[in-house]
């Protein structure tokens, strides 16, 4: 499996391998197993899979937070090996936001701009613009402790968009929220990403969310990519039974996955509209 042609624009992951707990003596567990994925400029791709399937590890490897044990990550044709996190020009949105507790909303959003050395006036303008874009205009002076979960995630989204990242990585950004909020925010996130023309990789374990947000969906299981296609193609012709199972298309043999994702309400039979923890 030698080099397929690397596209010039956008993200190109080739045969990426991520291992955990590896040392000189031990190989460690494989979290991501020779995954290749392309995301073209302006495209939103969702990484869909059960928790523990390696989708977050892949995302962290792309961000530069996890070292690659094999393969490569390139952006716009440039290999990113050895480029540290803060020089990649990517954005990352965590599941629980990770807002800086000692900064107010505005200064959280401004953080990336400060690191870039953007002048104060321009910074203030951009912060206002982004808070407006996420529906939190006028919140700049608020302490982050006073925000609700949904508001926190909106601020975190504004913060990661402020420095105009070349690529935005979203690591289950909505899964800590309740269902109705999640459904609404998924639409908002897609609109915001579209409006800002941001290239993005969106990790989720919820297929409805993936279909709402993404142009293409990559289904992942046990460290490998099973299928990458547009939502309608996936639904029409899943490549395997396992894929169909994730998408809630086939009845499952049992509930033996032991996968809860923190949600106690596990439907006995999943439908395409119901939230599916697995």
């Amino acid at each position: 499996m030698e080099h397929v042609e690397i596209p010039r624009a956008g993200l190109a992951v080739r045969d990426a391998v991520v291992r955990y707990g590896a040392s000189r003596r031990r190989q460690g567990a494989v979290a991501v197993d020779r995954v290749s994925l392309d995301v073209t400029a302006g495209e939103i791709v969702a990484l869909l899979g059960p928790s523990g399937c390696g989708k977050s590890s892949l995302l962290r490897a792309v961000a530069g937070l996890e070292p690659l044990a094999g393969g490569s990550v390139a952006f716009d044709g440039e290999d990113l090996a050895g480029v540290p996190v803060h020089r990649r020009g990517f954005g990352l949105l965590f599941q629980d936001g990770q807002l800086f507790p000692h900064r107010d909303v505005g200064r959280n959003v401004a953080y990336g701009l400060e690191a870039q050395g953007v002048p104060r006036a321009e910074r203030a303008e951009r912060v206002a613009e982004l808070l407006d874009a996420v529906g939190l205009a006028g919140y700049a002076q608020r302490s982050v402790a006073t925000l609700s979960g949904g508001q926190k995630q909106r601020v975190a989204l504004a913060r990661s968009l402020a420095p105009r990242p070349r690529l935005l990585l979203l690591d289950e950004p909505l899964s800590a929220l309740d269902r109705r909020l999640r459904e609404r925010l998924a639409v908002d996130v897609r609109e915001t990403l579209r409006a800002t023309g941001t290239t993005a990789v969106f990790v989720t374990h919820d297929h409805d969310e993936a279909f709402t947000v993404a142009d293409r969906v990559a289904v992942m299981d046990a460290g490998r990519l099973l299928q990458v296609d547009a939502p309608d193609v996936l639904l029409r012709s899943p490549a395997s039974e396992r894929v169909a199972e994730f998408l809630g298309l086939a009845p499952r043999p049992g509930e033996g996955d032991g996968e809860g994702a923190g949600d106690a309400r596990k439907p006995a039979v999943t439908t395409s509209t119901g939230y599916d923890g697995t």
Partner: protein
Amino acid sequence: MSARVAGARLDLWRGRLGWGVAVAVPLAFLGIFFAWPVVALVVQGFFADDGAGGRVLDLSGFAEVLSRPRTWRLVGQTLAQATVGTALSVLLGLPGAYVLYRCRFPGRTLVRGLVTVPFVLPTVVVGVAFRALFAPGGLLGWMGLEESFAAIVVALVFFNYAVVVRTVGGLWERLDPRAEQAARALGATPWRAFRTVTLPALGPAIASSAAVVFLFCATAFGVVLVLGGVGYGTIETEIWVRTTQFLDLRSAAVLSVLQLVVVGAALAVGARARTRRERALHLTSDRTASHPLRLRAAADLLPAAATAVVVLGLLVLPMAGLVARSFRGPDGAWGLDNYVALGTTGGRNTLSVTVWEALGNSLRTAALAATVAVVVGGLVALVVSRRPRSPGARRAVGVLDAAFMLPLGVSAVTVGFGFLITLDRPLGFDVDLRTSGLLVPIAQAVVAIPLVVRTLLPVLRAIDPRLREAAAVLGAAPGRVLRDVDGSMATRSLGLAIGFAFAVSLGEFGATSFLARPDAATLPVVIYRLIGRPGAENYGMALAASVVLAVLTATVMMLAERLRGDAAGGEI
């Protein structure tokens, strides 16, 4: 090679250099001013001059010292004092931790502050306070406890109560109450739920605080010296007596080795307890775990009553007694005579400096010591708080963590004594540090560093690593991440760390008593000299000086606690 990759290389080297310095500075400091003196001391015990300028291995010093019945009596007294002191501190500290960290009532902040004060009070002051309490004519003179084992143990509990309350309380406060509620729902009585669910969860914190208290009790110096009187002693005081009175350095060295064994064992137990504790328990991050104090329920009333008795009887009474006595002049009349006398050098010129001059010396040395301790301790906390990716580096960090805690256990007297025998020609340089006046602040810094580390470390460790990742992804270089995340979060507890370092240095007695020249004596040294000399006038001055020192340290601590505000973290 692209510009991004070239920049990355530069970053990498800059990072390595930065961390190299952060590791090297504390290692060098503690190497020269802690490890070397202590090792030299141990060597002194194992080797003897062969008469030709060389040294030979000679264990006769051990044989000689260990065959003395006096040595075993001292070892027995040390262990007994430490064991009883620790047991009482834990027994009394548990209800205190519950009431002060799990219940809400008006004035809780004040009581928490009050409980912490004794820990930072200079040992000599505490010795003087309890002596005044138990002396004939004192408030508790009728108990006949003057110069007794009981008096020393009570004084040790006075000191270490705060260690247990704060360490255990800090964990208890954040313990998820739902586990206990689940046990109650399953039919357990409150007592049974406490015993089977809460107590095991608190176990590591209790063990960790007990190990620290055991250390402090086993190496207590000032209190024992002041309260013990003739015939009573511990390994620690014996080292001091052997060195300063009999000039018997060999016996002192052997005793120091013995001391190290006791300390090492206690530290090992404490370290094990700490690692167990860091395996995360069910902690709640919000502060909803406390409830209003309900005096009608026995589960609240008993601990509340116990805590009230301890705080009033054990903590407030001795301090109030000390203050009251300090206002009674040599002739027994009430007045400011003792305070007026602080401008003199004492009856029959006991001192070389006036007490006020000694106070000036204390403030100067403590400021210097606190600066050094905060710089070195801050670097240690920063390095030790990292969790590197490679297992080798993680192990190295673990070793550093343990190494930097050693000064906490190794007695101040050992440090002071070690300085005496090594720093006449440090590293072969021909500068006698012993006369430079720098030695006292350095020794005080060595004693204060572990406290600085233990104040800052929990805060740095509690920072979610993803917060640093979030900053890095937003384009912050490693140095900037350090400043914006670690720096901002640690700033408030830095105030507490500075306060701790300053207060501890102000009251430091063990090492200082070895090293301070008479004309540069600090306040604790002066107080000890004053009570050691006969004369009601000197005793009165000692009481007044103790009050001054106590007020000063308490003020420093209160200010520091204020700076800290509500930020979490902070055990002793």
